[in-house]
């Protein structure tokens, strides 16, 4: 159950929904949390006069409250959380599988997978022996902090813990939603074009690291790495950039080292 809103609205993949944290020992790791069912408010008429109500609140205030609850939970447990963002097909899951292999013996790992449909990614992660929770967003194009809060209830969180949150593949919408993560990593693959940081600046402006993936394909493409780097730095002048091939493993050690340095920076280290 949500400690923020007290809801238990998310349905599991097999159609059941219920409160969590009430002491029963039911295992959720094998099926997805489904947020596809719509939120429909109910109108309850009352009598009052026409008037103006001043609100002055951030539209994402509710997300911000959930994000802070996630941050508090992560900080209290000592676990470090990374939000992985990219377009579909950039190789996030392959990158994760490689990174898990590099960090598995030093960290207690868990993965939260976000996709509109299927548990395919969570199943791939579980084959590495790491626990994975699949969130299905239904029609949703991004993860929000509320969904991630439910998923965090289901992964082991402790000091020396590292939680990867693989967002829905989308270079636009996920940028707006703080999940309470410690750091954001945007993954761009060399098959996508070097101008993507300029075309989708919100995502790159909000990132703490850019991973340029599929570098093994560079000999076959016209992709200009330096032009891509310049585009990314124009949007985010301080953005560190790592060149990686999740397929061959090149650059994975540097990515793993960045994660460990970042975790140490916020006081969460193995």
């Amino acid at each position, binding site marked *: 159950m949500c400690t923020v809103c007290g809801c238990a609205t998310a349905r599991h993949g097999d159609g059941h929904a219920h409160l969590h944290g009430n002491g029963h020992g039911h295992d959720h790791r094998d099926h997805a949390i489904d947020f596809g069912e719509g939120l429909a408010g109910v*109108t309850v008429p009352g009598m009052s006069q026409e*008037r103006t*109500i001043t609100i*002055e609140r951030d*539209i994402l205030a509710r997300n911000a409250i959930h994000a802070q609850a996630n941050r508090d939970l992560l900080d209290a447990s000592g676990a470090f959380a990374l939000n992985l963002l990219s377009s579909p097909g950039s190789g996030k899951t392959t990158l994760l599988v490689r990174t898990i292999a590099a960090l598995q013996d030093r960290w207690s790992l868990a993965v939260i997978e976000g996709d509109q449909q299927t548990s395919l990614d969570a199943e791939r992660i579980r084959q590495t022996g790491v626990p994975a929770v699949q969130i299905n967003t239904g029609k949703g194009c*991004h993860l929000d902090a509320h969904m991630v809060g439910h998923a965090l209830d289901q992964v082991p969180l402790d000091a020396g813990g590292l939680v990867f949150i693989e967002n829905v593949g989308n270079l636009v919408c996920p940028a707006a939603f703080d999940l309470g993560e410690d750091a954001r990593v945007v993954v761009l693959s060399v098959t996508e074009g070097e101008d993507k940081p300029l075309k989708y600046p919100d995502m790159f402006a909000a990132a703490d690291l850019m991973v340029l993936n599929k570098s093994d394909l560079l000999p076959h493409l016209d992709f200009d790495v330096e032009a891509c780097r310049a585009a990314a730095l124009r949007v985010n002048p301080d953005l560190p950039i790592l060149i990686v091939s999740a397929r061959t493993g090149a650059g994975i050690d540097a990515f793993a080292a960045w994660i460990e340095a970042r975790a140490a920076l916020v006081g969460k280290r193995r």
Partner: protein
Amino acid sequence: MHEVSLIENVIALVEHERTKSAFARVSMIRLRLGALGHAEPAALRFCFAAVTAGTIAEGSGLEIEIVPGEGWCPDCGNTVALAQRFDACPVCQGNQVKMTAGDDLRVVEMEVA
């Protein structure tokens, strides 16, 4: 289209207001959006009627005030207008301009009855 989620969040704020003061319907919702923010006004307007259908905000109008983008250039010290997040400084052409305004995403007020 995350604008659907944003309108759902607006409805949640409206519902929250109704727990503080009773009203039967909403005739107008006013938003303030930054020109450099994450939401596209046209997309918000496009999905507004569909997302509010069946909620307390069904039938409400939507007004969107746009806050222009503004930044501060550490190279020349000027406050400058920004049309895009990553624009160079129009005074010194520096590329380090820090956005200072235009990232708003707020519900300002609403008219209810």
